[in-house]
Every structure is written in structure tokens, then in C-alpha cells.
């Protein structure tokens, strides 16, 4: 098991290397530079800036220098957020994004599983149709509609919750962003669980459990749900990586200092180091969560083994 984990993590290094290389050169090929302004900087100033940030060197030298710094764990200084290094920016933003994403993930799992199970147990009843309709709604309505509407209704009209801001991470400030992040996930989880639960309830091992005379609650929670979780687990791997690394829309609308914004702002302003830092963070999360998914699979499904 431990050997498998180590092998997988070592195997991720070439993948990460490819991602870093591809995004490094894609960023550099894009027209424009980090110091382009509406009014062009003075030639001498620009030259000095380029020299300080090593932008005057040939591309391959910049690339090697970046790889060297990366190997030492240095992500470099940010180009647009002056006086901040990329590490500092990510270190301040990532915990916030992870807190929001983690809570949203938890909410999505709990509500999605409960709703999906209820719908599957009462298949083709009005409860079932209700859940499916709500799930369609959750998938259809985009988060950039949900976020401002929630902020408008609960923040401005009812004045129950703050319409935005981080507020030092107080629970009241977390409610609306977490709901926005969780809604589509709840919908997808509920649909997945409903589908696989209906199948699991018809499967042989559940029939056997019934024949043993186990209580219905036990059958559903222990035997059926375990099998029904598999598609959700494989869906939630990439979804969790995306959630934990922040959402541009939610962070922009609620004014939260997470790392989701850095990606878009960095790409638009050609903040090369910041974009690279964010891409690396996202890639690491994807790799780690894919590994977690595979390990969970082995835990949930005894037929899967890693040796």
C-alpha cells in the first residue's frame, strides 16, 4: 500500500513537469508582457525592470532558471502584486480557498447523499421527481447567477447575512459562498447517488443481506451505499481539486481573498510567475486527489487491490 502511494507520487513528477513546461511556454508565446500599460513605460525603466526580472535573457535560460528555482521551492516574485512573492500570495490565499472549498465539499456530500438516497428509495414517487427537478435546477443555473442573487436576497434585501467580504473567516461570512459553491455539487452528487443506488438496491449482495433479515436501515447505509458511492468518489476527485483551489466567480462576487482570482488576473496581466504558481498548485491538487480516489476505491470495493 505505502509502496503504491510512493510509486504514484513519483509517477506524478513527469506529469507535473509536462504541465509546468507547457504552461510556461504557452504563457510566454502569448503576446504582451507583464509591464505593458496603457501608457508605455519609459524605455530605460522598462529595460531595468526586464533586467531585474531576467526577462531580457533568452527564453530557454529563463525556463532553466525557473526550473532551478522551483527545485529549490522558490516560485519567484509576483509581477503585478509588487513586493509580494508568489509563495506569500498563495500562502495567504490558499487556506481561505481550501476552507471554503472543504466546507462546500462536506455540505455537498451530506446533502447530496441524503437526497440521492431518498430519491432512490422512493423511485418514481413525487419525492423522487422533486429531487430530480431540484438537481436539474442546481446543475443548470450557473454560479455567477446564484452568487449575486443570494447576495442580493440574503445580504441586501433581508439583511440576514453579510453580502460579501471575508470578515476574518467568521461563520456568517462563510454561509453564502459555501452555498453557492455547494449547490451544483449537491445536484450532481444527488443524481449520481440516485442512479447508482437504484442499481445497488437490485444487486445480489443487497438481496442476500435482505434474505439474512438485516434491518432495512442497515442494508441501505452499510451495504447499498457503499457500492453506490463508487461513481461519486470518482466524480469528486477532480471536483474536490477544483473546489479547494478556489473559484474566480465566487471570490470576485463575494470579495474573498482566495487564490481563484490570481489565476485569471495573473493570466490577463501576464504575471508569469503567479500563473505558474497557481497552475502548479492546481496540478498538485489534481494529482493528489486522483490518488486519494484510487485509494478510496480500494477501501470501498474489496475487488480492487494495490500491491
Amino acid at each position, binding site marked *: 500500500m505505502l509502496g503504491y502511494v510512493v510509486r504514484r507520487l513519483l509517477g506524478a513528477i513527469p*506529469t507535473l513537469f509536462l*504541465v509546468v513546461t*507547457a*504552461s510556461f511556454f*504557452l*504563457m510566454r508565446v*502569448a*503576446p*504582451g508582457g507583464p509591464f505593458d500599460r496603457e501608457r508605455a513605460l519609459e524605455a530605460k525603466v522598462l529595460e531595468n525592470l526586464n533586467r531585474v526580472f531576467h526577462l531580457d535573457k533568452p527564453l530557454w535560460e529563463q525556463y532553466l532558471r525557473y526550473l532551478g528555482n522551483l527545485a529549490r521551492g522558490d516560485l519567484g516574485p509576483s509581477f503585478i502584486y509588487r513586493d509580494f512573492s508568489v509563495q506569500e500570495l498563495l500562502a495567504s490565499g490558499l487556506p481561505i480557498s481550501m476552507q471554503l472549498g472543504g466546507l462546500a465539499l462536506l455540505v455537498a456530500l451530506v446533502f447530496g447523499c441524503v437526497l440521492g438516497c431518498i430519491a432512490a428509495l422512493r423511485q418514481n414517487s413525487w419525492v423522487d421527481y422533486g429531487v430530480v427537478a431540484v438537481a*436539474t*435546477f442546481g*446543475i*443548470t*443555473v*450557473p454560479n*455567477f*447567477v446564484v*452568487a*449575486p*442573487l443570494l*447576495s*442580493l436576497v440574503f445580504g*441586501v*434585501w433581508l439583511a440576514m447575512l453579510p453580502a460579501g467580504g471575508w470578515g476574518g473567516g467568521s461563520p456568517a461570512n462563510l454561509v453564502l459562498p459555501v452555498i453557492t459553491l455547494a449547490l451544483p455539487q449537491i445536484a450532481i452528487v444527488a443524481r449520481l447517488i440516485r442512479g447508482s443506488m437504484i442499481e445497488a438496491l437490485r444487486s445480489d449482495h443487497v438481496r442476500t443481506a435482505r434474505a439474512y433479515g438485516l434491518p432495512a436501515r442497515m442494508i441501505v447505509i452499510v451495504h447499498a451505499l457503499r457500492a453506490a458511492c463508487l461513481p461519486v468518489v470518482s466524480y469528486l476527485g477532480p471536483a474536490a481539486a477544483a473546489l479547494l483551489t478556489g473559484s*474566480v*466567480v465566487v471570490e470576485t*462576487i463575494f470579495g474573498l481573498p482566495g487564490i481563484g482570482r490570481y*489565476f*485569471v488576473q495573473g*493570466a*490577463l496581466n501576464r504575471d508569469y510567475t503567479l*500563473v505558474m504558481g497557481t*497552475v502548479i498548485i*492546481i496540478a498538485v491538487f489534481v494529482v493528489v486527489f486522483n490518488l486519494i480516489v484510487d485509494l478510496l476505491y480500494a477501501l470501498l470495493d474489496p475487488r480492487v487491490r494495490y500491491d
Partner: protein
Amino acid sequence: MTDLATNVSQPPAAGAAGRSLWATALMRLRRNKAAMASLVILLVYIFAGIFGPMLAPHDYARVYPDFVKVPASLEPYPRMDAVLPAAESTARRARLEARNIELDGNTLRLEATSRREIDPRVTRYFDRSDLFSNTHIVERSADGRSVLLESQVERYRFIFGTDANGRDLFARILISIRISLMIGALATGVALVIGVAYGATAGFLGGRIDNMMMRVVDILYALPFTFFAILLVVFFGRNVVLMFIAVGAVEWLDMARIVRGQTISLRRREFVQAAEALGVSAGGILRRHIIPNTLGPVIIYMTLLIPKVILLESFLSFLGLGVQEPLTSLGVLISEGARNMRAAPYMLLYPSLALTLLLFALNFLGDGLRDALDPKDR
């Protein structure tokens, strides 16, 4: 149900024995109420997108500086009680002293004096405002220091209100529906052409070429999507047509996979082998036999791709990367509404509603089509 039966009994293309796949699918679709309702909504949207901007009472780019952020209402603007103060302030701007203003229906009469001789061109001050038109001097005193002006009060209806620049929101929603539908159709078309051609080729040729082609697809899958979209925008600039193509060029991956899978299973069928034995060229077999037979799943995927593309365009527009002013799209309108939601909540509500309804209709129709075309539960 009776018209259903008659329709089915005389299908033009199908032979005497049984119904064709398409006739069955159509019949199933007609029985699906949600899908039919979605179809009607979609037709309304298409109609609104094509003809709406022509029929709308206001031009989507016309700015009414006097009606900035007026709330949505069925009453015409200006409100009756707002006309007199407006006339007074306009007169002040024209260096006139308004003495006697009266409003008779839609006609405004204004007596004004000035310390100096009044230039007859003062009427232009009134015409320049959105409120008044056709201003003319009725009477002019002998010394030219007092006049009686008559002006027509213009009345406008903004049923969805106006935006922060004083443009009619209803007209802007109509034009953005046109843009969204165009993007949906064009980008999906691009994705369709690339995906079908790529997937069919890979599946048909098989072997090492297939492996290599699918490896490319896998690599493209791995790139973070937002990053890709932003880079495309950076490369192509903020051009609407190029945006369509860029979005389509990103979205063809799934299509390629689906078509490839279909092609691999079709390739082993007798009719393809017969065509090969008869010496039909590879391209001919692809065009004549393989691609037409993959249409079912492709159509299903396409209907689900359209809302995805519209959503994607709205997302990019929301970030300020999409359509540029004065053109607009639902994503732009929603992001403007989100910025102004405290002062003008209707600016957020109507575009959100328009987008949600459109996405709903497309999704339900896609689900309905899938159910109708899925041969598994026939």
C-alpha cells in the same frame, strides 16, 4: 393523441414494415411534456433572437442620458411630475428664466424671459434632451427678451428598465439572446465538425494512428480549461467570431471520443466490410457509411453541448473576456447587474432569468432527445 396516430401511420420515408428510428423518436419526444414545453420556449428564444432586435422599440446601443437606471415598469417615462422640473432646469441651462410652464397632454408650453435678446436657436437646448422634441417658438415679444415655447414631450417605455448608461435593458437582452444563440450554434458547429472528423478518422484508421490521435486528446483534456480559454482570448483578441471558433475548438474533445467509439463498433459491421470489398475508398466509406450512422449519439451530445457553450461564453463574458461593447451578451449583462444590484436589482434579475430559462429549455430538450433516441429502452 389522434394526430399522433395519423402521423405515425403514414411516414413518408419508412417502408411498410414498422417505423423508422426517427419517426419513433419523434413520437416519443412528443409524449414528453417537459421536452415539448422546452421546444416551444426555445422557438420563442430563436424568434426573439432573430427578429427581436428589429422589433424592439429601442435600439440596443442607443443611450438615453436622461433615463439612466430607471427601474423596470410598464408606465411610460418621463413621469408626469418629472417633466416640469426637467423643463425648468433645461431652461436654466439655456440661460432663460422660466416663468410659466404648463403641460397639456403631451404638449409643453413655456413662457420664458431673459435679460438679453433671446437667440431663436435656444430650442436646441430642449431638443437635445431626451424628454422634448420638435420645440418651436410660438410667440416672440417685440424686444426679443421673452418668448413662448412649445414642445412635444417624448414618452418612452422601458419595460425592463435601463442600464447604468441609460440603454434599454429589454433591447439589450434581446440582442444578447441573439449573441448567445449564435455562439451556441456556431461553436457547437465547429466542435461538431472537428470532433466528428477527428473521431471518425481515428476510429476508422485504428492501430498506432488511433493511439497517437487519442493521446493528443488526453493531453488537451489535462490542461486547465480556464487557462486555455484565457490564452485563446489573449491570442485572438476580443473578437466575437474568433471567440466562437475558440470555444468550439476547445469543446470538440468529448465529441471526438464518442464518435471514435461508435466508429470502432461500426467498422466491424458487414455493410462496411462489403463497401471495402467493393473497393470504396476510405474517405468514401467514412462519408457515406460511418458518419451518417453515428448521428444519433452525436445529436444527443450536441443538444447538451449547446447549453454548455452558452454557459461558457457567459462565463468568459462575465470575466470581461467575451463580447465587447456596445454589443452585449447575457454574461456581460449579469456581471453588470451584479455590480449594480443594490441600486438596480432588476438589472440583475431579468438577464439572470433570461439565461436560466434558456439553459433550462436546452437541458430538458437534450434530456428528452436522449430518452427519445436511446434505443436501449425501446
